[in-house]
């Protein structure tokens, strides 16, 4: 197991982001254009790991820890409506672990469903968090904290609009529109909170993640 871990970490440490002294997770295709990695996150770097449906043992361990962090972050701020760390953590995870963060988002939804039962919001969660992961992944080469803060803010602002999609099928456009409009004050709070949290915590969390990945690569 130690040999596998070392192999994985060595591979990861090769991919240093230009202009950034710290390390980020590599991508699964391991194609490097202009010194920057591209493609899906960390599968080929774990070729020698046992595979469980495409995920190595290390992947599963990492996914578990990320899901635990999401849950802890979610429940730590439960007392503040629409103030949450989930979006910020998913952004950070996606930048470091790529598209496999979608599995984290789905696991998070499954745990929330176990907590609160199956309701309409479960359908929303099944696409809204993976959508954030994909949006961030498409912008993974951006490094500006301002970019991700604004992205996180806009995501919060449009959260209700995205969530209203199932109501298009349940009650038509009028129901979806009414549902969305009724929640706009919460979306605005969500927007401002996401922006502020990302602006304040993106750098420390990113630094911490880089540090963890760096020391575990030794």
């Amino acid at each position: 197991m130690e040999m596998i871990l070392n192999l994985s970490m060595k591979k990861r440490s090769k991919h240093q982001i230009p202009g950034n002294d710290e390390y980020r997770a590599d991508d699964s295709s391991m194609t490097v254009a202009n010194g920057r990695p591209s493609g899906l996150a960390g599968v080929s770097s774990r070729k020698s790991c046992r595979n469980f449906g495409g995920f190595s043992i290390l992947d599963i361990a990492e996914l578990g820890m990320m899901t635990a962090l999401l849950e802890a972050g979610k429940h730590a701020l439960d007392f503040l409506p629409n103030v949450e760390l989930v979006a910020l953590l998913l952004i950070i995870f996606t930048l470091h672990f790529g598209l496999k963060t979608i599995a984290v988002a789905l696991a998070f939804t499954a745990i929330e469903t176990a907590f609160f039962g199956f309701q309409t919001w479960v359908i929303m969660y099944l696409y809204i968090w993976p959508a954030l992961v994909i949006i961030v992944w498409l912008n993974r080469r951006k490094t500006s904290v301002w970019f991700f803060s604004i992205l996180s803010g806009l995501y919060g602002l449009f959260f209700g609009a995205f969530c209203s999609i199932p109501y298009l099928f349940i009650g038509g456009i009028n129901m979806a529109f009414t549902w969305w409009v009724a929640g706009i004050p919460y979306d605005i709070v969500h927007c401002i909170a996401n922006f502020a949290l990302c602006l304040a915590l993106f750098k420390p969390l990113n630094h911490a993640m880089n540090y963890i990945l760096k020391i575990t690569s030794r």
Partner: protein
Amino acid sequence: MKKSTRVLSGIALMAAMIALFALVYSKFGPKSDEGSKTYTLEVVDDTGSTASYSGRTDAESLSGIMDELVAEGNFTYDGSDSEYGLFISTVNGITADYDNDGAYWSIMVNGEYGQYGADSQPVSDGDDFELVYEKAQ
């Protein structure tokens, strides 16, 4: 484009979107503070003096309006459940004791005696209600 310009543009975009959403909410959002039906309620006490209330409500029954007025703080009432529904005994601190002197609170709806108790008296747009302290002859 300079980085600072891009950042300011992004923040301006977000602020503009917030303003737009707020505008949509103010235009199409729920108007929970305003009910869909207008009403007046007049209380005529044992001395013949009156207290008038009016407003908008979504209440289904007269007792719903009375509860809203109680919540606003300038109206009080007390009563008990009976086989005919809510039996009002006290309004604004004045108790009608039928057993003692035949006094009771009557409900008038648009100038006529109401046919229901306060908790089952329906509310329609523009209704004029009265709670009148009366004595049996």
